[in-house]
């Protein structure tokens, strides 16, 4: 009977996920937040059902009741997060709040299925992060001088990355982490945010050519340290974020074009210089010839997505652990395999909905610094998703970055929660600063 139920459950999960995704886009329609209350409620119900049915299938498959308790804690955490954030900050974006919790819950489901211990560890980190980050919107509202510390941001960022380069342990051929008291930190994750603050502050100060040159040099220093640490995925993200921020802030296509050209040039040089870049490009172009070696990960990922098909094989019916690093870099393929390609596409669309939510606040903010921050975080977020999902589906070469909020990895999930909370802070700031603006619209 368990087989039949898990067989059925995948359809139920796909349907509710599809409804949730649909609502995640209808929420952008219209301005009246009160009228949208129904959308957000339906989203919460869908989120609950997807989570519940998934765990029902997990419990049936494993016949292990400890999962029920774990599920209970997750459910409490997610609902408490939604409730408390909404009570404390009346101006938060409820859509982004829902989306964040939805992505976290999908992450819990998949991680529980892949590796219970890792799921427990991830749950603890998420819980702590959500509690800590609850103050972020308040701090953002209170401290309005965050734009003054541009050089401090640069210093912290370069120092953190530099220390990793010097001391960091070797993980998967790239020096990207160091361990303190049993916890492994991946500073490049946190530096992403600090870097965005640095660029935002510099561009808010002045947009003169000299200022851009100075900022570019510091930004280049970040990227070069990351390249030296062989963390090319992060280096690419920093680079793209920087070009996008400069372009948006200066309104000047010159920087977009020069940036793109530099990017292409750097890509070619990196390919010529680094064998591990060549390996990844080869594995991307023809993984089937290297199925035993460098093409193994990507071919296993394609097997997972392809065998799963539109509705997936059902939880515990596939073999996602055949993919190396599945819980971090290839979690998307594991989701597609067992929960289905339709579900996985909805997941991408939910991420896109988050991106639009980020951009939405950037467009409405008046303060240039905050606006730059929102743009930077939006691009950081969506480009990372593009890299990880594009890599897992053989659209682009693998870069080894995580799927924010879903993948296993403490630094990654904490950083992303901070990002979401900063954006929520910006929503609150916008509501305060733009009172006049809003009133005009309401009057009509």
């Amino acid at each position, binding site marked *: *009977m368990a*087989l*039949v139920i898990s*067989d059925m459950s995948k359809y139920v999960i796909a349907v509710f996920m599809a409804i949730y995704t649909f609502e995640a886009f209808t929420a952008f329609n219209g301005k009246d937040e009160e009228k949208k209350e129904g959308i957000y409620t339906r989203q919460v119900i869908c989120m609950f059902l997807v989570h519940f049915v998934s765990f029902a299938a997990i419990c049936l498959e494993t016949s292990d009741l400890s999962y029920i308790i774990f599920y209970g804690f997750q459910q409490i955490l997610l609902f408490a997060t939604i409730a408390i954030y909404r009570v404390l900050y009346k101006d938060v974006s409820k859509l982004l709040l829902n989306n964040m919790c939805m992505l976290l819950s999908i992450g819990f489901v998949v991680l529980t299925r892949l590796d219970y211990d890792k799921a427990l560890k991830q749950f603890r980190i998420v819980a702590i992060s959500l509690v800590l980050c609850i103050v972020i919107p308040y701090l953002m509202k209170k401290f309005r001088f965050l*734009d*003054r510390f541009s050089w401090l941001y640069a210093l912290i960022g370069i120092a953190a990355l530099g220390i990793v380069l010097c001391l960091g342990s070797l993980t998967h051929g790239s020096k990207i982490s160091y361990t303190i008291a049993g916890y492994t930190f991946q500073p490049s994750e946190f530096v992403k945010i600090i870097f965005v603050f640095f660029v935002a502050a510099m561009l*808010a*100060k002045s947009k003169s050519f000299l200022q851009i040159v100075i900022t570019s040099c510091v930004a280049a220093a970040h990227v070069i340290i990351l390249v030296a640490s062989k963390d090319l995925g992060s280096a690419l993200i920093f680079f793209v974020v920087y070009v*996008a921020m400069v*372009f*948006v802030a200066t*309104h000047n296509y010159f920087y*977009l074009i020069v940036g793109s050209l530099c990017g292409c040039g750097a890509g070619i040089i990196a390919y010529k210089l680094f064998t591990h870049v060549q390996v990844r490009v080869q594995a991307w172009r023809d993984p089937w010839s290297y*199925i035993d070696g460098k093409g193994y990960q990507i*071919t*296993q990922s*394609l*097997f*997972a*997505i*392809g*065998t799963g*098909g*539109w509705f997936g*094989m059902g939880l515990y*019916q*596939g*073999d996602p652990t*055949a993919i190396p690093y599945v819980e971090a870099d290839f979690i998307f393929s594991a989701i*597609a395999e067992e929960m289905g*390609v339709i579900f996985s*596409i909805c997941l*991408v*669309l939910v*991420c*896109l909905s988050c*991106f*639009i939510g980020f*951009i939405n606040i*950037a*467009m409405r903010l*008046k*303060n*240039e610094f905050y606006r730059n921050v929102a*743009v930077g975080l939006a*691009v950081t977020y*969506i*480009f990372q*998703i*593009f890299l990880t*999902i*594009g890599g897992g*589906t*053989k*659209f682009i070469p693998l870069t080894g970055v995580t799927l924010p909020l879903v993948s296993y990895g403490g630094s990654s999930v904490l950083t992303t929660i901070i990002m979401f909370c900063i954006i929520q802070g910006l929503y609150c700031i916008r509501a305060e600063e733009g009172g006049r*603006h809003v009133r*005009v*619209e309401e*009057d*009509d």
Partner: protein
Amino acid sequence: MSGSKRTIREFEDDELYDEEPLPKKKKRKKQINKKDKYRNRELWVVTYIFIFLMLTVIGNEIRFVYTDSETVINNSYNPRQEILAQKNVRGSILADDKTVLAQTVRAKDGTEKRVYPYSNLFAHVVGFSTKGKTGIEYLGNMNMLTSNASLGEKIQKEISAEKTIGDNVVTTLNVELQKVAYEALGVYDGAIIVSEPSTGKILAMVSKPDFDPNNIVEMWDGLVNDDSSSVLLNRATQGLYPPGSTFKIITSLAYYRQNGGNVSNYHYNCNGSFTYNGDRINCYHGSNHGSVDFATSFAKSCNSSYANIGLSLDLGELESTCNDLLFNEDLDLKFLTGQSKYVLGTNAGSYDVMQTSIGQGKTQITPLQLNMITCAIANKGTVKTPYLIDRIESYNGTNVKTYSSEDYKTIMTEDEAEFLKEMMTGVVERGTATKLKGLSYTAAGKTGSAEYNAVKTDSHAWFTGFAPVENPRVCVTIIVEGAGSGGEYAVPMAKRIFDTYFQIKGLN
């Protein structure tokens, strides 16, 4: 940052939004929106770029699942096949009339055995599923491991703790035709392909020497260690042979193209051999064909005349014709194929040119490819993609998926196909395949006797052709290793197959 600078910026910010008071609120809102639009223009660009990127990623994933995944996942490196094999009983392989060609039989103790009721008859084309997977056992592997039985049946099976039954693969193969082709080839090694030119369906495919797939495990070591006869190789799709006189089809096409479709001026006086620069080409067994025109040279398969034609050919034209006819490329098919080779180049010496134009030399072709070229001639110049799996059905006969006929490539014009068809009709009417003349149906084709070593009497017998000429329905390609001349050995086999085809399917 200094305080004064900050004030200036704030002032600028304010100026941007606190424009002079406007009389009407509506107008003012419009103005703000306009400003917003201007201010956000670049942000819109960035937003659209990333939305576009993400939609491309989604599109790529959908494309992969929709078009590529079926072939991709059927890979021995995909561990999910084992999982499915644990859950489902492997489905059966059925002939076009649903006769069982391969099925899994479960003993009372739960052990499974794959049984092939026709033993050697379908050895290569159906293949085997232990010791790796070959043939249709490979092509339909994932389908047979997947079950599309209804949910009710799945529940029933689960309650009674049985495995679900996987889907069946219904092939295009016809048992009668396969039997006739198998028996016709007799004790000889070689291959036969019978196909439908209008659809690409393969009706029969024989390769010898063969083996009994029921005993594959027991015989495995012997088969693998035997290098000389390569029993496991499917000669029909992977065997590379010198094309012999069947290559004259291609030489003729190149000559026809080079002369703008007019070959009526060609005449040659054959006295049994052709000498150029001291190199000599003999007609088969030294036959003397006398005065021949182009069509007669082809019908009688006159080597001397074709050596003469070859020397008049522009080698670039011959090479491009060969490339059009799918030489030197991997065929884009779902099953393993050999790569046919044409290596003459454009600077070859006259002896090599003479040899190549009569199908000797270094040219190599698979029977499958010759069959595809013949099908194109029969089908107005277009090759249909050859296929073996007609449809997938659940074990109780509900249709799951039907494969339809697809164009592979148009390799010659309709006019060129018509020209070659006439030439091949001449072969039956007054040439080397007159054994197919005067029957209840009309036929066309080309014979070949490919010499493969220095001893003159050793040659592979070829025949490739189709019937009926007016409306070709069946296409046969035969290679008989080391038998002798195509007209003597291969043509009678073709006749038996054509006879059987029209017996089964009727003349109309």
